[in-house]
């Protein structure tokens, strides 16, 4: 039963292709973001599986070294800009207006533009990958996603497609961020103060500000790269008086906060999933908000820990080391808050909660190897090794992607009006988590034993762990087909979902039908519903 049943008089919606191309509806745009992200995830995943297939044994089996490097570059860019960020934006589009009692995003037309820039950017990204295969297409991109000069200045025309793709992706991100900030600051239901806002909304408010602060810097950096390539400037060319290290600083000024851009929305999802399945309010709402602001602030000023080996002064590396280690305090506080929320709760382990628990365990593990990497003398050994690959996959897969999976399973019944197949979802969870650990855990040992990252061939002494890692990657990669099947099956039918899908769930979104009407909250929620929150008053 729903307090706000479909307001049928207001539930007219366009049909056919116009519904999607001209859409200004936050739910439709959210759906498009999520489908786009799912599609890109399969492209990014396929490139990862090719990489791991090549690394199954030493020697060069399947891929030309240039193609291998191209795949490494594209895998990262597709996953970060094509899969994780759009998926988080999809959750934001779907859920933020429902959670704050707003009828739609604040700027619906700009919302449409933000999404439709993405397919254009994806085409540019795709062209950067395929152009070298055509006559006159130049060399393949072999820089990795960091695009460091001077190599990125020497690459063929595919780099230009990549730079324009990054420009488009950046414009899309900034527009979406502006929309989210305006929505959260101006469109909340009367009576919902900032400190009464659901935690998912808080995480997106901070994320959106981070994006506005850092994406333009990346845009500036790649624009200078473009000028160096084509207009005779020497911003990053030492021969012309420029400095290649300058690009590294600009890139990581964006790149490090980007990690928090990927993580925070998933932390927001956890802040809903854990209280729901623990049947307790979120522990420490105010401290969570404070910790998040601390993470974002400190995260902005520690970028050069990615560049310890460039030869900075002792004072500089000490500052970046201490700053980086300090971040573990607010991050740890969030983790402790989640554990305290579960403490003595009446917990059940539906799929979203399984992902939440896996995140707490595995993300913490990735965080610990991050503390190891933050220590300068240790990093001198680990730098550019497979240890780093293992570390950031342990941070980003559980921290960002599993959080998104948790969110999808948590809200899928709300979106589609059907319950997903819990048994299949649990099979997906276990194959995914086990496959992930088989893939990335051995990479710690490979890195510690001295195997560099981003190489197509390796010493025979690394064979066994690489074989294990590649077998894990196949299990991990193929498990996502099951996710696709579950999603399609749920969209097509299944047990009818109630308005309040989960017994322990709180928040405005659960006062709407499942699926919600095309237009919702045209009448602002009543004061009584605003008190239905996860947080202690």
């Amino acid at each position, binding site marked *: 039963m729903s307090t706000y049943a479909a307001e049928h008089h207001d539930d007219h919606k366009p049909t056919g292709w116009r519904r999607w191309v001209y859409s200004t509806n936050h739910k439709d745009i959210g759906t498009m973001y999520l489908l786009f992200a799912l599609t890109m995830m399969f492209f990014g995943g396929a490139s990862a599986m090719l990489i791991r297939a090549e690394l199954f044994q030493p020697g060069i089996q399947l891929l030309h070294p240039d193609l291998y490097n191209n795949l490494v570059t594209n895998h990262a860019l597709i996953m970060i800009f094509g899969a994780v960020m759009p998926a988080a934006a999809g959750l934001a589009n779907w859920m933020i207006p429902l959670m704050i009692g707003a009828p739609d995003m604040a700027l619906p037309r700009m919302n449409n533009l933000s999404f439709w820039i993405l397919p254009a950017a994806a085409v540019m990204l795709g062209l950067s990958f395929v152009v070298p295969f055509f006559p006159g297409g130049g060399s393949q991109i072999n820089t990795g996603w960091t695009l460091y000069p001077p190599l990125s200045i020497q690459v063929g025309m595919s780099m230009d497609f990549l730079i324009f793709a990054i420009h488009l992706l950046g414009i899309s991100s900034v527009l979406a961020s*502006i929309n989210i900030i*305006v929505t959260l600051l101006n469109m909340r239901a009367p009576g919902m103060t900032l400190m009464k806002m659901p935690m998912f909304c808080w995480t997106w408010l901070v994320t959106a500000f981070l994006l506005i602060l850092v994406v333009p810097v990346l845009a500036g950096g790649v624009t200078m790269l473009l000028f160096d390539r084509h207009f005779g400037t020497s911003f990053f060319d030492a021969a012309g008086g420029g400095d290649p290290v300058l690009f590294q600083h600009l890139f990581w000024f964006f790149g490090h906060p980007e990690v928090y851009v990927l993580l925070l929305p998933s932390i927001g999802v956890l802040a809903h999933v854990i209280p729901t399945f623990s049947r307790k309010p979120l522990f420490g709402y105010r401290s969570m908000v404070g910790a998040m602001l601390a993470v974002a602030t400190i995260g902005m000023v520690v970028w050069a820990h990615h560049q310890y080996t460039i030869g900075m002064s002792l004072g500089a590396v000490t500052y970046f080391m201490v700053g980086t280690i300090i971040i573990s305090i607010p991050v740890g506080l969030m983790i402790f808050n989640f554990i305290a929320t579960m403490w003595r709760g009446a917990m059940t382990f539906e799929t979203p909660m399984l992902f939440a628990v896996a995140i707490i365990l595995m993300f913490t593990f990735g965080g610990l190897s991050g503390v190891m990497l933050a220590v300068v003398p240790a990093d001198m050994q680990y730098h550019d090794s497979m240890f780093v690959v293992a570390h950031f996959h342990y941070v980003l897969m559980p921290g960002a992607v599993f959080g998104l999976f948790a969110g999808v399973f948590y809200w899928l019944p709300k979106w589609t009006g059907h319950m997903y197949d819990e048994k299949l979802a649990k099979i997906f969870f276990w194959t995914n988590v086990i496959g992930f650990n088989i893939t990335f855990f051995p990479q710690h040992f490979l890195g510690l034993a001295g195997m560099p990252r981003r190489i197509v061939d390796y010493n025979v002494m690394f064979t066994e762990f690489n074989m294990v890692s590649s077998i894990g990657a196949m299990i991990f990669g193929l498990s996502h087909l099951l996710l696709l099947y579950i999603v399609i099956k749920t969209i097509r039918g299944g047990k009818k979902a109630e308005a309040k899908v989960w017994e322990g769930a709180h928040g405005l979104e659960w006062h709407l039908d499942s699926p919600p009407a095309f237009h919702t909250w045209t009448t602002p929620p009543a004061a009584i519903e605003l008190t239905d929150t996860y947080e202690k008053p």
Partner: protein
Amino acid sequence: MKNPDQQQNLKKKNLRLAVVLGSFAVLVLLTSVPFWKAVLIEIAKQNG
């Protein structure tokens, strides 16, 4: 449902904030200090 005046005011308020945020993003882009420093160096080099 808000009355039309309220709706109009909210739209204006939203647009105003969006313009402020957009301008801030452009400012961050333009004040990526090394960019302008390097442009000035380039111009100086070409002039002399």
